[in-house]
């Protein structure tokens, strides 16, 4: 496959409009870090419906937000919560308990094993974790078999998991879709590789020479679409740029909890306040707040 250098930069609005109702979208990041929030908010703003969402291995409230905004039909996720902020996503709990979303049970590595199978064009990847649990009983796609070599251990065969899109936050990218994480990468590279198309969101577009200067840092080569979204990970951290906004995450937890308990007014107001065009959103957060989250860069130009 020849890869001709092509500029792939789009506006956040144009990029999000490429994702269609009913598609399968994997959302990168981990815990309270590196979630592509500018794209997530724009997907919600454009009213996308019936998405199958593939969460990162430790999804945070970015998935909970998509669920609470009514965009999700099916969810493939090992975990939806925000750990010490809230042990479970309130909208996830509400929608899963009422049956309004379908949930596919998995574990962190069973999820990755599906990405590896898709990325490498292989029928399945094998993994031992999950043996002896209810997960393979419930999820018939995961097939338990006996190790054909040693003939004693049980193993699970995990079929390919191939999203239509992976949306990934990177630190910076050139206009051709070559991006670098400037801190922890978590599982983003494997999620990206498994998807049919990759959309990255970066803090800054940089010249190709910056990427070429340190090729070992290039984590996502040949993304199909790139958008520039400064502070696009807010309220989460973007490792190497800024830390998470604890207060903002706590406010989310409060408003989503209200929704779970039947107070949809508080929740709808929350959505109205936060699901905005990216720069209006940043205005809402406020420059003082944003600058206060700045962290010392790990990698210099």
């Amino acid at each position: 496959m020849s890869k001709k250098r092509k500029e792939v930069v789009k506006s956040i609005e144009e990029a999000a409009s490429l994702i269609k109702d009913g598609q399968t979208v994997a959302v990168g990041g981990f815990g309270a870090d590196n979630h592509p929030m500018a794209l997530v908010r724009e997907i919600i703003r454009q009213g996308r419906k019936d998405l199958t969402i593939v969460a990162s291995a430790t999804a945070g409230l970015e998935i909970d937000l998509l669920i609470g905004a009514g965009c999700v039909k099916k969810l493939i996720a090992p975990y939806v919560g925000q750990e010490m902020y809230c042990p479970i996503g309130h909208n996830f709990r509400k929608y899963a308990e009422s049956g309004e979303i379908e949930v596919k049970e998995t574990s962190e590595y069973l999820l990755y094993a599906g990405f590896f199978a898709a990325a490498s064009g292989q029928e399945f990847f094998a993994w031992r974790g999950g043996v002896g649990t209810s997960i393979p009983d419930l999820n018939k796609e995961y097939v338990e078999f006996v190790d054909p070599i040693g003939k004693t251990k049980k193993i699970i065969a995990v079929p390919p998991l191939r999203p239509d899109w992976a949306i990934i936050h990177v630190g910076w990218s050139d206009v051709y879709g070559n991006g670098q994480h400037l801190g922890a990468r978590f599982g983003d590279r494997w999620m990206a590789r498994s998807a049919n198309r990759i959309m990255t969101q970066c803090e800054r577009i940089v010249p190709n020479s910056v990427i070429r200067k340190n090729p070992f840092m290039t984590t996502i080569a040949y993304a199909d679409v790139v958008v520039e979204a400064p502070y696009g990970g807010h309220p989460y951290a973007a490792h190497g740029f800024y830390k998470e906004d604890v207060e903002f995450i706590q406010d989310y937890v409060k408003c989503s909890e209200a929704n779970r308990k039947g107070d949809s007014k508080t929740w709808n107001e929350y959505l109205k306040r936060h699901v905005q065009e990216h720069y209006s959103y940043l205005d809402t957060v406020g420059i003082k707040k944003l600058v206060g989250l700045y962290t010392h860069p790990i990698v210099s130009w």
Partner: protein
Amino acid sequence: MTTTYKPAEMMTVAAARALKNTDVTFVGIGAPSAASNLARLTHAPEITLIYESGTLATKPTVLPLSIGDGELCDTALTTVSVPEMFRYWLQGGRITVGFLGGAQIDKYANLNTTVVGPYDKPKVRLPGGGGAPEIATSCGEIFIIMSQGKRGFVEKLDFVTSLGHGEGGDHRQRLGVKTKGPTKLITDLCIMEPDPKTKEMTVVSIHPGVTREQIQENTGWTVKFADKVTETPAPTELELKVLRELNERTARAHGEAA
């Protein structure tokens, strides 16, 4: 000992003491993180702490609120990718102790973090397994930390998210799982260990001031006590001082979320 302490502090201290200087520990957020760092700051300065976000030999100054926190990366020896962590460190057999907790546990220390009630019509939806299913089978041994109560300590799980001793006896071996599984269940009331033969979790040590009746009242099955039950030594002043300072530093760094 005149210092007063909370049952949760006793639980964290008991868990910290169970860790050795030579351990390579797979740490989760919350009580496991507090216990592991308390061990590192007291009797086990060379313990290797690994968090599932891929951070190796990390030495956080404050406790993380989330598994991906920059604090863990910035104070680590290195940060590998999450899949690499699971494949080569976890399933590769390089972790001696993994910590787990859950919403529900049964007497064989199987854990549920998925749903309470029938799966299709859950009474309570829980956050999901995360990495627990593979942590449970791949770490050398598992320590479980959980506050004890009837809602959580149940006769039968609605969903087995991670494998403990299965149906007891040699169930793990029959599945070809070679690791020890849960060797300690540390609660705010006592410490339990599996019976060598049946693998039923059995009380071996009771925290100061706690009675056998209290333990039974907070457990959904008939509790077995070992022939010789000891009293857990109360937290020392040093243990409490280090733990409280750690928690205070964390609160200062993160605000009220901590």
